[in-house]
Structures are given as C-alpha cells and as structure tokens.
C-alpha cells in the first residue's frame, strides 16, 4: 500500500510550481527577476523560461555575486564511497536496477573503512556513503557500523542510500552521520511511477516524506535533487525542487539544505532521457536555483565535463565530488563490480584542486569537525 502524502506533498506547493512552470513569461519578467532581491516561484519560472535564453550571462553574473557573498571563493570537495550496488528496486534509468544482470558487491564494514582510508590519503575529509536499495545487505545496522568506522577516518560522513524512518536517521546521526541525500529524481507523480517500477523506491510519497523525517531526526544536512531529463517538463521539476528546498529551509530550520541537478548519463540501464538540456540551458537552470536559494549549497558531480565543472565553480556551485568511482570497492580494487554510471571528469582529486586554485578558488577539503562523540580530533 502506498504511503499517505506528507506535509510538503500536502502543502499545495507542487501544484503551484507546476502552474508557474506552464505559464508564459516576457523578457521584462526575466529582467525583473534577475534584479529582484527576493524571488517568488514565478520569478524563478521566468528565469527558466525560453525568454531568459538571451539573459544567461546577466543571470550568471548575478548568481556569481550571490555565491561570492555567501560562500566566498571556496569550493568544498568530497568523494562518493559506494558501499554496495545490491538493489531490490527496479528503476529504468539506473545501472544498479534489480533486474539488470551485473556484477554485484557489498563491501564489508572493514572494506568500507579501507576505501575511506584510500580516499583520506587522496586528501578527502568529507565522504558520502552510497548504496543501492537492499534492506538486508545494506541494513540500518550495517550502515551504522560503516558510518562509525568511517567517522574515525574523516570528520564528515553523509549517506545516500534508500530512505529510512526517523528513528533510523537518529541512530545514524548518533553514529556520526552528518547528512542524508535523497533525490526525488522527478516531482511528477506519473513519470515517477513509470520509471520506478518495483521496490521500496516505487513509493513516491514515502520517498518525499523521508526527507522531512530526516530533517527532524538530528541530521544537520539534507541533500535533495532531480535527475534532469527524466521528466519531459524539466522546468517544472527544477521549480518543484526550488519550492521543496525553500519549504525545508522554513520547516526544518536548523538543517542545511543542498540541491543538485544531475543530468541523465548513459548507464547499464541505458534509458533515454525525455529532455536533453544543452550546456547553456543547464547553466541557466543552476543559476536560477542559486538566485532562488542564496543560502543553499549547490552540489555538482563528476557526471559533468571538466570544462563545465570549472566554469560552474566560478558561478554558482559550492561543493564538488572529484576523482569519483561509482563502483563498490572501486578505489581499492577497481573493476570488480558494476559502476552506477560513467563519469565525465576523470581528473584526479589533486588535478581538480589544482584547477580550482588556478582559477582563484580555494579547494576546501575539510569544512567540518567530527560529530562522533568518540572522535579524538576535530
């Protein structure tokens, strides 16, 4: 039985975002939105509209100013640490989808700690534990143990796994986990049901509500996002994401909200995108998010090319992964399991850091103190 809608789903904001995205906007609407101190949903919709295509540079300038003031000339670096690609959900776009016959692997907690040490040696102090959705292989107990071990290696640990209940998030927080990342992928219910065919992730409302539960659990950072291209109406999805982020900032006031807009990449699933955004449109979408959410971190993965990543670091992105492997065990023993998707920026972490430095940006490896009460160093 599907879950009942949570507070955000019941707020009416999704409907307003959809309606705003469907409206038409004149160049004067775009101009006003770029200059506005506070943007409402329709202002953000104007920035995403066709009428804003010629205003990308002006919007980027505004986005850069907002980013500089709030975040300075600094980019935080982190690495995804894939702990398992075992999965009981069937999602048409994902390389870990249950029905795909790919090499599966779940690392032992000791192996996870080993991967963390490899990444720490490469400079990382912030790690994101990533898995497919397999409640037995990647159970709360397993994650708590992995997190507790990793928290002794680096000060900042977050998770990107299946969703959990509030008590489980609280247990993870107590083990030293700082944040949880749960992308809704698309906010469109029909499209969501088409691509999430079976398994835990099929339940739209459970997934959306989990973010609220995580926000009330003691975790201090929540990452949300959409998979751009999954839904034909990408504008509605970006707008819904902006509305969702603002709603979370208001209701879970002590929680830092970050947003991401990964574009669909080829994977073992090889599902075709419904919408293809060129680079200019993609940059515009990220800039619109920045001015809509001046206080939100914007996260960019290695799905994007080095040139685009470097360019976006100077405009609106505040946090980046680098030197990523999307395969469990891929840092110590590459090639033993299926990767989730192929990456585009294959530079080493040191090369990414050097590129940031050359652009006049400080690569920030450590931006947190250990939350784990047993940590002996901050």
């Amino acid at each position, binding site marked *: 039985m599907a879950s009942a809608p949570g507070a955000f789903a019941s707020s009416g904001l999704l409907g307003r975002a959809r309606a705003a995205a469907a409206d038409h906007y004149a160049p004067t609407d775009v101009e006003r939105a770029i200059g506005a101190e506070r943007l409402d949903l329709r202002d953000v919709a104007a920035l995403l509209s066709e009428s804003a295509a010629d205003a990308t540079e002006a919007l980027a300038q505004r986005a850069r100013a907002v980013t500089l003031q709030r975040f*300075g000339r*600094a980019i935080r670096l982190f690495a995804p640490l894939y702990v398992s690609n075992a999965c009981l959900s069937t999602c048409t776009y994902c390389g870990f989808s249950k029905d795909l016959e790919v090499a599966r692997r779940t690392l032992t907690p000791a192996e996870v700690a080993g991967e963390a040490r490899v990444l720490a040696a490469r400079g990382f102090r912030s790690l994101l534990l990533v898995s497919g959705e397999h409640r037995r292989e990647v159970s709360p107990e397993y994650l708590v143990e992995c997190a507790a071990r990793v928290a002794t290696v680096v*000060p900042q640990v977050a998770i990107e796994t299946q969703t959990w209940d509030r008590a489980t998030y609280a247990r993870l927080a107590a083990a030293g986990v700082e944040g949880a990342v749960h992308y809704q992928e698309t906010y469109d219910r029909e499209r969501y049901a088409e691509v999430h065919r079976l398994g835990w992730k099929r339940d739209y409302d459970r997934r959306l509500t989990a973010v609220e539960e995580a926000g009330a659990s003691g975790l201090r950072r929540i990452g949300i996002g959409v998979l751009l291209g999954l839904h034909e109406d990408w504008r509605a999805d970006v707008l819904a994401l902006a509305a969702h982020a603002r709603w979370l900032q208001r209701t879970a*006031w002590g929680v830092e909200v970050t947003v991401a807009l990964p574009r669909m990449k080829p994977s073992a699933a090889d599902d075709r995108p419904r919408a293809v955004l060129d680079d200019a449109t993609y940059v515009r979408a990220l800039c619109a998010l920045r001015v809509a959410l001046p206080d939100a971190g914007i996260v960019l993965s290695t799905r994007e090319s080095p040139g685009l990543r470097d360019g976006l670091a100077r405009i609106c992105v505040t946090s980046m992964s680098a030197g990523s492997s999307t395969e469990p065990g891929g840092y110590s023993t590459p090639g033993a399991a299926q990767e989730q998707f192929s990456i585009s920026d294959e530079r080493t972490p040191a090369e990414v850091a050097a590129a940031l430095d050359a652009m006049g940006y400080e690569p920030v490896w450590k931006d947190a103190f250990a939350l784990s009460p047993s940590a002996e*160093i*901050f």
Partner: protein
Amino acid sequence: MTGEPFGFAGRTFGSRLLVGTGKFSAHTVMRDAVVASGAEVVTVALRRVDLDRAGEGDVLDHVPPGLVLLPNTSGAVDADEAVRLARLARAGGLPTAVKLEVTPDPRTLAPDPVETLRAAERLVADGFTVLPYCSADPVLCRRLEEAGCATVMPLGSWIGSNRGLRTRDALEAIIEAAGVPVVVDAGIGVPSDASEAMEIGADAVLVNTAIAVARDPVRMARAFALAVEAGRLGYEAGQGAVRGATSSEASSPLTGFLG
C-alpha cells in the same frame, strides 16, 4: 572606555582590527591580506583546521607568525558541540582563548543566545578565555560579561552580509554599559562601516567577508586598517554636536512671554 588600550587575556594590542581567514581565494592571498591589515589577532574556524595536514598547506600554516591565533567554533549548533570542539582544540595544542560561535540556523548564522551563554559559562569554568559572537542585545551582553567572558562580540548585521551596522542603536547601548571590550563582529561591509563602529566607541571590529571577497583583498585589508584607526581617533577626539538637516532658528520664540 576612552583612552584604554584594547586587549584580552592580559595582552594589549596596537591594532583594533581583528580579521578572519575564511572565504579567501587561496591561503596565500589570506596571508598577504592579514599582513596588510596590520591585525594582531586572527580568527580561524576549527572546522577548517586539519591537524593531520599540519605543515602540508593547512590553513594554520599560512597564518603569519607572531600573531595571536583565535580559534573559533563556527559550525557548532549547541553548547555541547562548542565546548567539545574547544576542548579538542586545546588537547590538540591550540590556544585557549576561543571565539565562541553557536549558530544553529544555517541561513542567517545568527548566534543562539541561550546556548552561547551556556557554553560561555562552561568554557570559562574550564579555564578558557571566551570571546563570544552574540546578538546585539544589551541584556545578553551583560549576562555574558557576568559569566566571565573576556569581551563581547555583538553583530552589526548578519554574518557575511556586508550590510553594515543595522544594529547601531543596540550597539550604542551595549558599548555604553559594557565593562569588557566590545568588538563589533559580522556585517561590516565597507571601511566606512568599520569607522562608524569605532566612532560610536567600539573597542575593536572583526572583519572577514568584506576583505576576502573584495576584488583586491590586500588593498581592502589596508583600507580597513586605516578606517579603524581613523574611526578610533575620531572617537577619542570627541565629536562635535550634529545639527539636524532641517533645524533652524524658530521663527517666533515660544518662551518670549517669560520676559
């Protein structure tokens, strides 16, 4: 406190400008800006400090030698975290004068008055010299002083906002009442804001974002040094009365009938 030197923990400083080390494009730029600022006290976020990387390009490696390092607890969301962080830093060999920051709201980074006071009481009892970043609230500042804090550091406006002294009336009341140095921290966006804070009698100011994100941080650091000095001199010199923009002689005296 006209004429009194500025200091804490038994030390006095020639410069009344304190600077932060975040948001710079590179540690080397930060170092050059700190030098240009003439500051003698530099605050560093403990969450950015990586003792495992000491000597290999960590932020602490770039703080010019000879300056007083003031670690801060930025990122702490309650008293427990701030106290634990300060103790871990002390155990790691860092100074025991600490800039206390407890900011549970990630959007405004507004200081939590309740948790800040609790943390201050515990840290003072534990032997720390405590310099609390706090709301511009005269009562809170008195309470922090009573708790044994070495200074109070009320905000001019939201941290990083560069919006200037939006809390000026409250700052004046705090300065009037304070028995410890008042350091205006947060929101100072341009050199004239720093002058204004000094002119109303602040003992010192702390500036970070305005220097770090300037086009030329080194030049801006120098500008702030001059502004702080000018503002202080102006305060010590004693300002003349200010005439209202539209004030003039009353056309018909109201008390003429008194003879």
